[in-house]
């Protein structure tokens, strides 16, 4: 629940960065730039940095609470799936390989796409395979009879 509350904050910050909400119309970008030139640009970069830093910090809190709620029996699948999702770095690899301007960067990007894909497909598949093995005790045929102790 706390996690959800945190995330709203992160969501708002992200929307905001995208220019979705709460602008001060008096400080339109064009006018500001014209007036203050590069200083504003620097300041904008700082504000931008702070806003993504807030997302990061809040997401760390979300991670903290979510991971503590993971049952220890599933710690190995947890590592496998975190492995798979940390390969979201493929986004950077795709951007690098999409741009043709610098061939060196493009080939590095493609190599990174291969590596990240191994991880994404391998990570999710092996997690799926592991999770499919976790089974409950097969209860005897009569579901009506309550089990002692459990």
């Amino acid at each position, binding site marked *: 629940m706390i996690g959800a509350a945190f*995330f709203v904050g992160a969501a708002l910050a992200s929307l905001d960065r*995208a220019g979705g909400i*709460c*602008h001060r119309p008096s*400080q339109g970008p064009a006018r*500001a730039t014209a007036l203050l030139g590069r200083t*504003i*640009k620097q300041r904008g970069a700082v*504000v*931008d940095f702070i*806003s*993504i830093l*807030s997302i*990061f*910090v809040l997401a760390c809190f979300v*991670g903290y609470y*979510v*991971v503590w709620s*993971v*049952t*220890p*029996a*599933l710690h*190995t699948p947890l*590592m496998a*799936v975190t492995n798979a*999702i*940390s390969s*979201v*770095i*493929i*986004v*950077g690899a*795709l*951007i*690098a*390989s*999409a741009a*043709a*301007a*610098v061939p060196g*960067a*493009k080939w*590095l*990007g493609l*190599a*990174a*796409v291969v*590596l990240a*894909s191994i*991880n*994404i*497909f391998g*990570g*999710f598949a*092996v997690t799926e395979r592991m*999770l499919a*093995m976790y*089974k409950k005790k*097969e209860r005897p045929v009569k579901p009506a009879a309550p089990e002692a102790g459990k």
Partner: protein
Amino acid sequence: MSAAVIPDMGIVETTVHAVNPWVALAYLVAGICFIFALRGLSNPESSRKGNRFGMAGMAIAVVTTLVTHEIAGIVEILIAIAIGGTIGLVTARRIAMTAMPQLVAAFHSLVGLAAVLVGVAAFLNPEAFGILGGDGNILAVSRIEMALGAAIGAITFSGSVIAFLKLNGSMSGAPILLPARHVINLAVLGGIIVLTALFAMSGAGGPGESPLFWILVALAFAIGFLLIIPIGGADMPVVVSMLNSYSGWAAAAMGFTLHNTAMIVTGALVGSSGAILSYIMCKAMNRSFISVIAGGFGAVAGPEGGAVKIDRPWKAGSAEDAAFLMKQAESVIIVPGYGMAVAQAQHALREMADKLKEHGVSVKYAIHPVAGRMPGHMNVLLAEANVPYDEVFELEDINSEFAQADIAFVIGANDVTNPAAKTDKTSPIYGMPVLDVDKAKTVLFLKRSMGGAGYAGVENELFFRDNTMMLLADAKKMVDGIVKALD
């Protein structure tokens, strides 16, 4: 709360990252999917759904990126994904469950290397990443993020390669101690930090210009290697979790460079996940994270291998003896350890448990958090052998039950059962939480030989107790023997 953390956004538009709000939203949705993926793991029932969320999130992130960028060669990209995907799927299908720690270490190394490659690509072609400032130089903030991302990625890569080699047995699990290693490590780490600062402040920030970046990445590769070689096999659960954490921080740093919510959220999730797992593992060994990282544990363990001389009497038993005792028992608690994984004895063990249940014996499993080579290692192996997860208990949930149990059946575990951890203040494992197997009426201790002490290099008092029967054999052979004798 949320209002307080959002700074003044009046002039955001002046920065280089002019983002379409829908794209930002799509990455946010991907990030949320990843949160659900981890949330699902709170119990085995919901876990499969969680994994699907993870896949969906990844698909959203990839498709969004492909749709919103001008792509020079989509064919090459699709081929790259197909190659990687095939390798990944085949590996995931073929890998033995006992090899899971190696596989995870190998996967970590790939994330690390991918992060380095992306960092270098961003350095060579900053324009594509939108981090080129007005003066033709890469923005200073982006230079720091890029350097950190590439450095953490490089540490993750070389560290994971060493961890993989040690876990895979291609390299001795024994710690390799270089003289003055702490000084070397600190110097290299300091060097990386100084270089990052210099790189950020240097005037020459043009694409691919500064040699500082290359030196920095090279140093990071070296430190990953240096950090892991002095760490012994028993500390691998901590190392694997720690590298898991690093791979997350590397992704997060790249997310900062790209101002990408999905990457930042994921990086934070994975980073904290690995950090928490490392913490749990350290606590389960009663050791500080620093002492684990400093390495060398188990290196001073006296005579290794079969050279240990034992002049105290112990009771040895056969498979038939064990079968007889267990048949008479009302309750048996099985304590698996790394030895079970090595011998691949989990299937035979479950057969034994089934036979015992036919004889009306209650069977439970007790798992120590650091049993095996990675967090949750034993649980996966038991699940593989079709042991229902509601028969498998964690240390704190079952420890009080040993006092009522007739038999504790220890298979391939050692240090995690050593009563010296509770009583002997001079023992290196003193204070470590252990399973109270010594409180059971009878302890059956399945071990390869009386020689080699546990990984901590400590002799286990339990072997010589009156109520302990040593079953000396390969774990699988012995359990198979017991199964036969139970018929």
